[in-house]
C-alpha cells in the first residue's frame, strides 16, 4: 500500500514537472531576466517572407510582410502572391488590432489562433521568471497572452520557442538558417491541431 501511494506521488510529481525539467533541463539560479527576440527588431528593415500555410489538407500560400513601426507597433500583412490583401494586423505592447481581414477568414476561432501565433512571433521583449540550462542551451520561461512559453537560446541565438500547456508542447516555433540576427526560415508547428505555417525569407 505504502509502495502504491509513493509511486502515485512520484507519478503526480513527474507529470506536474515543468516542460524543461521533463526534458532534462536544470533550474538555474537566475530568476528574473529579459527575453529578447531579435528577428523583427530593426525598424529600418522590411521583413518579407514567402508563406505557406497548411491546415489539415487545405493549403494557402502568399507573402507575409512584417515591419516594426517605431517602438510601439509591429505590423503584419499577409497578401496573395498577386498582391491581394488577406489580412492586416497591428501588434502593440499589450494590444492587438485587426486592420483588415477577408470576410471568409473573419471568424473568432481563426483570429484567436493567428493572434496568438503572430504575437509570439513578433514580440521583441519579454520578462522571464525562470531560466533553465542543459549543456550549451539556455531556456527562459515567459508568458505571452497568459500562456507559458519557453525560449531556447543557443550559441547562434534564439532557435526555438515552445508554447506549453500542462507540460505538453502545444506550438513550436523553429527559427532556422540564422544569419546576422535574421532567420531565413521560420516554421510554426501546432501539435494539437494540424496547422503548419512555413516562412521563407525573400
Amino acid at each position, binding site marked *: 500500500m505504502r509502495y502504491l501511494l509513493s509511486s502515485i506521488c512520484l507519478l503526480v510529481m513527474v507529470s506536474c514537472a515543468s516542460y524543461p525539467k521533463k526534458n532534462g533541463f536544470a533550474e538555474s539560479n537566475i530568476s528574473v531576466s529579459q527575453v529578447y527576440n531579435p528577428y523583427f527588431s530593426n525598424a529600418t528593415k*522590411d521583413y518579407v517572407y514567402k508563406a505557406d500555410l497548411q491546415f489539415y489538407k487545405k493549403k494557402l500560400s502568399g507573402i507575409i*510582410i512584417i515591419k516594426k*513601426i517605431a517602438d510601439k507597433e509591429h505590423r503584419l500583412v499577409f497578401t496573395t502572391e498577386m498582391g491581394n490583401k488577406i489580412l492586416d494586423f497591428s501588434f502593440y505592447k499589450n494590444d492587438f488590432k485587426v486592420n483588415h481581414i477577408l470576410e471568409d477568414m473573419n471568424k473568432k476561432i481563426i483570429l484567436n489562433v493567428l493572434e496568438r501565433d503572430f504575437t509570439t512571433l513578433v514580440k521583441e521583449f519579454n520578462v522571464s521568471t525562470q531560466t533553465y540550462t542543459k549543456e550549451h542551451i539556455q531556456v527562459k520561461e515567459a508568458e505571452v497572452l497568459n500562456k507559458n512559453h519557453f525560449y531556447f537560446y543557443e550559441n547562434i541565438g534564439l532557435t526555438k520557442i515552445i508554447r506549453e500547456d500542462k507540460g505538453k508542447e502545444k506550438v513550436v516555433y523553429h527559427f532556422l538558417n540564422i544569419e546576422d540576427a535574421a532567420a531565413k526560415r521560420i516554421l510554426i508547428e501546432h501539435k494539437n491541431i494540424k496547422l503548419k505555417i512555413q516562412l521563407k525569407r*525573400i
Partner: protein
Amino acid sequence: MNKIVYFLFFIALGTVATAQTKMSSKEADVLKNKVKVTANKTQSISSDFTQYKHLDFLSNDIESTGKLSFKAPNTVKWEYIKPFAYSVLFKGETLYINNEGDKSNVDIGSNKLFKELNTLIAASIKGDMFNDEYFTITYFKKDKNSEVHFAPKDPKLSEFIKAFHITFTSNGDVLEVKMVEPSNDYTQIIFSNREVNKVIPDAVFAQ
C-alpha cells in the same frame, strides 16, 4: 521669400496638371474605340512583367517579376519567376496553381467571385473594361499616354479594389495596370516585351 514659395507651388501644380488632365468625352470615345478594336483583334499576348506591391508602412515596394501569357477568349497564365516560382493558370472552369512545384487546383465553375475575377483579369490585360454598368470610368491624359480609372460598382468587389488604373500607349496597348485597394495601398504591374498575336506553344497552358 513668399513669392518664391508661391512660384514653386504653382510650378509644381502646373507639372501635375500637364502630367494628368481629364479627357473630353470626345477624346475618351476615341480612346475607347481604339482599345476595343485592338482588343477584338487580340488572339494572344505574351509579355514580361514587373510587379510592385506598395504598402504605405514599408520602406520599399516588394518587387517581383514574371511572365504573362494570354490566349483568347480567357485563358490566362501569370507566372512569377523571381523571387519565387509561382504560377496561376485560369483555364476553362479551373484555376491551376503551381506553388514552387507543389501543384493544386481550384474549381471556379461554382465560384462566382472567381469567375468574375478571371473575366476581369482577361479584360484588364487587353484593357477592355469599358463597361459603365460595372464601373465608374474616368479618363485622363498623361503625357503621350492615357490613363483610365475603373472603379467597381459591385460592393463585393469594391471591398477588395477601389479602382483599376490602366495606362494605355498611344496605340491603345496596355502598358501598366494598377489595382488600388480601399486603403490606398496598391499593386502595380508594368508590362514589357509585349508581343501580340504571336503563336504561344500549347505547353505554356498545360498544367
